[in-house]
Each structure stands twice: as structure tokens, then as C-alpha cells.
């Protein structure tokens, strides 16, 4: 196992600049790195998107299959989010079952999608209690330079926007896929997440890996297009209540910027 080590001099520089409201790569405090969203890269998937934020790169593929509903929601389709920190993305990632970081990433993205009710889950029911559609969201981290949460959340929603469902008919309680034009999945909401790092009292939007590791604390806030909060996850460190309220304000602005990028392609 190896760990990310950043030079003390870089860390000190990041903190010193943050105290003056500046950043090591010249960005403003609320500025994202360049964002690129590409859709439909994987033809075998029902939907896919690759998002890069700076040199962080995440690929998300959507697969729709049928399965059993959860016992407590027999008339609703199922959303399954999984994240893989594949070893090609970082010298610190190792092969094997998902570790706590991968599980946390998947669960935070899942919460944003689920709580904002991005899909009408009732419409994904085939036969109540027996058969429903299962929407698999598989997050593949390809290059890790910080802020996996935002890149993954953005790629997931972009991939869902790209998703088309094959036409089907129901025979008995089973689904039979038939020939025909696939239909786009209808989305009800557009949740995106905004991660901020606290460094020397300043809040830095979209922290790079260096900034994440130098930061005193991290927080991720997911909001939908009506500025409702759908998920929050505090990472390392601690925040005063005032800092939390301030981060919500910043997230409001930043998430609307992300959503514009989502529409712009």
C-alpha cells in the first residue's frame, strides 16, 4: 500500500495562499477547473458519460436490467450505484473489493440521485412485489486528481440523461425486449454536488488532490435545480456552523454553474 504524500512546502503554500483568498493554480476560490462532459461513449451501455474536471476523469455507465424490488418498496424500481477506484487511476488505488472510500463515494452519489427523486421510481415497476427495473449506475474512476464526488455525481446525472430504454412488452410477469426505437429515460430532477475544502479559513470549491490533502476539512453538498439540499457529507476535519451555512451559499451558486454545463454538453 502506498499513500499520497505531498511536499510540506506545497502544503504550506496552499494554506498561505488560501488565507489571502488565492489558489496555487491561479483559480479564484469558487472556480472549478476546466470541465468536459462527453456522452454516449460506450455503445453497449444503455447510457454513459465521461466527465473530466481538470485531470480528474470519471466514466459512468448505466445498465438497465430487471430484478426483484426491495420488500419495503414493492411497487418501485431499484437504483444501484457502485463505484470502482480502479488501480489505473492512482498509485494509491489497489485492486480488490471496494474499500471504504469507494463505498462512501458510491453512497454519497446514490443519496443525491435517490433523495432528489431523479427518476420516477413508480414508473419502473413491472409487476408489484415481483418484478421491477433495476437501474445500475457504475462509476469508474479513471484518473484521480481530487474531487471525485463532484466528477462522479456530474458523470452519473449526465449518463442518466444519455440513457435510453429499449422497448419492451410484459408477458406474464416477465419482460421481453422487443425491436424498436429506444426511448430516453425521463428525469425529474438534476442533482449535482459541490465539494469544498477549508484551508486557513477559506472555502475552496473543487479542490485538487493537493488541495484536498492540505485542507483542514472537506464538505460535499448536493443540490437539485430548485436549490433544495438532497445530500451532505462532511469528510475530514471540522466546520463551524457559520462555515456550514456559508458553504451552502457557495454550493447554491456553484451547482447552478454545473447544471448549465450539463445542459451545454
Amino acid at each position, binding site marked *: 500500500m502506498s499513500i499520497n504524500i505531498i511536499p510540506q512546502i506545497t502544503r504550506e503554500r496552499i494554506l498561505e495562499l488560501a488565507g489571502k483568498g488565492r489558489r496555487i493554480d491561479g483559480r479564484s476560490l469558487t472556480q472549478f477547473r476546466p470541465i468536459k462532459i462527453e456522452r454516449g461513449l460506450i455503445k453497449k451501455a444503455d447510457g454513459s458519460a465521461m466527465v473530466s474536471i481538470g485531470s480528474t476523469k470519471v466514466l459512468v455507465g448505466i445498465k438497465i436490467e430487471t430484478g426483484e424490488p426491495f420488500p419495503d418498496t414493492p411497487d418501485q424500481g431499484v437504483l444501484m450505484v457502485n463505484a470502482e477506484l480502479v488501480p489505473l487511476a492512482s498509485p494509491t488505488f489497489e485492486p480488490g473489493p471496494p474499500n471504504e472510500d469507494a463505498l462512501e463515494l458510491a453512497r454519497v452519489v446514490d443519496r443525491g440521485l435517490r433523495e432528489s427523486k431523479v427518476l420516477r421510481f413508480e414508473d419502473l415497476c413491472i409487476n408489484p412485489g415481483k418484478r421491477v427495473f433495476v437501474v445500475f449506475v457504475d462509476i469508474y474512476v479513471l484518473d484521480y486528481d481530487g474531487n471525485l464526488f463532484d466528477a462522479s455525481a456530474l458523470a452519473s446525472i449526465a449518463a442518466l440523461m444519455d440513457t435510453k430504454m429499449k422497448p419492451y412488452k410484459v408477458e406474464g410477469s416477465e419482460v421481453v425486449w422487443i425491436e424498436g426505437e429506444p426511448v430516453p429515460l425521463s428525469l425529474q430532477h438534476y442533482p449535482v454536488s459541490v465539494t469544498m475544502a477549508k484551508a486557513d479559513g477559506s472555502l475552496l470549491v473543487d479542490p485538487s488532490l493537493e488541495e484536498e490533502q492540505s485542507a483542514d476539512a472537506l464538505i460535499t453538498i448536493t443540490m437539485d435545480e430548485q436549490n*433544495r439540499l438532497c445530500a451532505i457529507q462532511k469528510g475530514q476535519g471540522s466546520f463551524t456552523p457559520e462555515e456550514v*451555512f456559508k458553504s451552502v451559499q457557495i454550493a447554491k451558486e456553484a451547482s447552478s454553474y454545473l447544471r448549465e454545463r450539463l445542459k451545454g454538453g
Partner: protein
Amino acid sequence: MIYKRIDGRAPDELRPIKMALGVLDKADGSAYVEHGGTKVLVAVYGPREVHPRHLASPEGAIIRCRYHMAPFSTQERKNPAPSRREIELSKVIRQALTPAMFLELYPRTTIDIFAEVLQADGGTRCACVTACSLALADAGIPLKGLVASCAAGKYQDRIILDLNDVEDKGCQADLPVAWLSTTGEITLLQLNGLLTEEEFQEALNLALKGCRQIYEKQKETLMNYYTAPAKELVSETGQEGSK
């Protein structure tokens, strides 16, 4: 009319809380917390040698934390293998406690925290954080302050404090919070569900209010535990005793 909850509580009322310290013989520190129907037991071992050794850090102690639910703690039997949720919560609880600790004091060691949920009735991660902080204190590990934790949420369109199991399962939003007593900073913050900005502010302030009440209870428990034996000694020998 005042809104009454299913268990008769006011919207901003905590459930009854019981705390006990030093409940386990072999652990370096331990605590038991009952928060309504939720019952958790925490043991702390360390600072002790790290195995496997490559995990050790020359910069300070590492913290390993395991949040685990007993198979019999829930209505349906829970598979004892750690679930995805338990692994995430272990990380979140560790991050809730880390800001309170002086890890640089114990390089190349580990502090192991084991939190077992014996009975789950809503708010288990919060009860665990509260209990972990007490167990760390009981283990004699220096802390910047106690960490107290409780959740607020939205249930039937109202913002309420300290959700029980029924409210937790049917809630529109759940906001667990942990608070470090000395700095007043938030060390755990998660949100699951939909809240407007105003509702979020209200819920966070309510949860912090709950944390402060829990902190008073923690302090009282520590004081009672560490002064009680001394009192016994005084009554037996008629002299000042110390623990």
C-alpha cells in the same frame, strides 16, 4: 396546539438517555449508551502497537474504527458481515472523533475503537459517536473536548429532533450531527433527504441544541464515575481518597 409526536415528545425533545462508563473489564476504555430504544456498547483499545505494521505512521497514531450492528439488533435479522452502510459509517464516525484527538502524541501506534449496536431504534451512528467519545475519555486518551452527537430531521413536514425508528424510516430528511464541545465545531454532518435552505438551517440549529444537552449528560456521567469511588473511600475510612 402543541404538536405531539408518536412517542408523545415535543418536536425539540430528546429521548431519555442513559450513559455508563467502564462497563468492560478488558478494554482500556469503554462506555454504554442508551438513547431511547437504541443501545450501543463501545470499547477502546490503545494506543497500542499497530498490526500489520506497515499501517503505522511516524507522524502520529492512526485511528481504526468499526461500527457494527449485532444480528439481533434489528427487526429482521441482520447479516453479521459488514454491510456497505456499516463500512461508510465506520469512516464517518472515525472522522467525527479525529478532530478531538491529539494523534501526534502517539506516533507509530493505533487507537482501536469498536462500536457495537446491540439494539437499533434510530440514531445509532449518533449514539455511537457519543459513546465512543466517552470510551476514549475512559481510556485516558487526551481529548480536545467531548464529542456529542444527535440527529434532527423532517417528518410529516415538521423539523424534529432525535428521530426514533418509526420517524427515521418514514422521514423526509435525516441530518445526523456531531459537535465538539470545546470549539463548538461540527465534526460529523450528513444529510439524507430533501430540505430547503431554511429547513436545513432550522434542523442544524436544532441538532446542535440536542448535542449540547447530550454533552451536559456526558460531563455528568464522567464526573459521577470518577468521583463516586472517592466518596466510598471517604465513607469507609473517614479520609480523603482519590481514584
